[in-house]
């Protein structure tokens, strides 16, 4: 092998990489927020006794979970203009990612609410709490604690998944690999560096989420 690895020339692109990281994080956070809002609605609809709500909700979840994100993205970005809906790449990315996350969010939330035992609700009601008070003081904390790990790992999954939106030209972190590649012709180094940047982000977020879990759910407030 007589290839000279030249990772050092990539150092010139710190600004681009940083900008990519910021956009990736923005995309991830927006996706998480919108996805959970959609997911909450879908979870409630799916659990509703009305077939008019539950059937479409389940159809949505199954459709999204059984097709690739990349194809969903292409439908939104390349397909919708045929219907007269023209979206910028950034907007198409946020919409496709949020719709995708909505299906997973619905499943996570449903599992979370199911995890709170009926007896806990009964205990709350038998103490004279109203349904809303029981939800607020009994169910919410336990359910949040139950779904937190799934939400935390879902965030990392989203962050890693956002790189597919580079294929429609969103200049997030993964797109910077192609950009650096086009400037330096150092494809291997560029993609390795960018891929490992995701590893750093993943590890940093996992550590952050573990700390938050400890601070919120494990640590007892000092008395």
């Amino acid at each position, binding site marked *: *092998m007589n290839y000279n690895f030249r990772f050092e020339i990539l150092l010139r692109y710190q600004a681009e990489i940083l900008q990519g990281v910021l956009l990736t994080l923005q995309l991830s956070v927006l996706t998480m927020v919108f996805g959970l809002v959609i997911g909450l609605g879908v979870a409630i609809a799916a659990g509703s006794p009305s077939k008019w709500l539950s059937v479409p909700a389940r159809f949505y979840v199954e459709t999204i979970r059984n097709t690739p994100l990349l194809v969903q993205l292409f439908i939104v970005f390349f397909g919708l203009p045929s219907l007269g809906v023209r979206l910028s790449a950034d907007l198409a990315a946020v919409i496709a990612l949020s719709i995708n996350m909505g299906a997973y969010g619905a499943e996570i939330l449903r599992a979370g609410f199911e995890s709170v035992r009926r007896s806990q609700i009964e205990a709350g009601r038998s103490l004279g709490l109203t349904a809303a008070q029981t939800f607020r003081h009994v169910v919410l904390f336990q359910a949040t604690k139950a779904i937190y790990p799934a939400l935390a790992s879902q965030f990392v999954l989203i962050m890693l998944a956002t790189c597919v939106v580079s294929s429609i030209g969103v200049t997030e972190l993964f797109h910077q690999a192609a950009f650096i590649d086009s400037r330096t012709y150092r494809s*291997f180094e560029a*993609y390795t560096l960018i*891929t490992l940047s995701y*590893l750093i982000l*993943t590890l940093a977020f996992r550590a952050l989420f573990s700390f938050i879990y400890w601070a919120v759910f494990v640590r007892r407030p000092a008395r």
Partner: protein
Amino acid sequence: MIREFAGADVVYLLLAARWTVALALVAMLGGGLLGLVIAALRIVPFKPANWLAILYINLIQGTPLLGQLFIFFFGLPLIGIQVDAWTAAAISLSIYAAAFFGEIWRGALQSVSIRQWEAGASLGLTYGQRLFYVVLPQALRVAVAPTVGFLVQLIKNTSLTALIGFVELTRAGQIISGATFAPLRVYLVVAVVYFVICFSLSQMSRRLERKLHVAR
């Protein structure tokens, strides 16, 4: 030349879907074998082996598959292995799948209580007999549904190989879409084909889960 999206194009997409399935099968086999090794490294009572497996799993699960694909696509030629998109995709997806299979199977093995090992031991069964007759049959029941469930992820993730130019279902969709300028219809057909494959697997996974959960 722009033409209509026609029946022949649907046939082309279906033929391309064979490559999606073939790639997933190769990754399932390659990843399955490597995954067994990862699961074994993860549970043997030898710390450096555990660390190696954990490093591997974190490296694969902590980075985007798309990045891994590009690294193999551009990296293998550098160490003298000329690869086409198919080879890079097959290797990369196998390595990716191994990390997940390894974790699923480790979890399944560890879900069998230590008491079952002890009960086997107290009857005089050797380590191998305890593993094969007592623990593995129970672990298999636990592992089947999530393993089939992961195949859905695998099928969906083969779509990323379109971005390194491997002509499977999604890439075929891009090609037809470019030729016909009917992207919405083309990608909807593509989505339907994925859905049929993945939904069948999902349902199978669910049925297996229910069946194995009820049966012993």
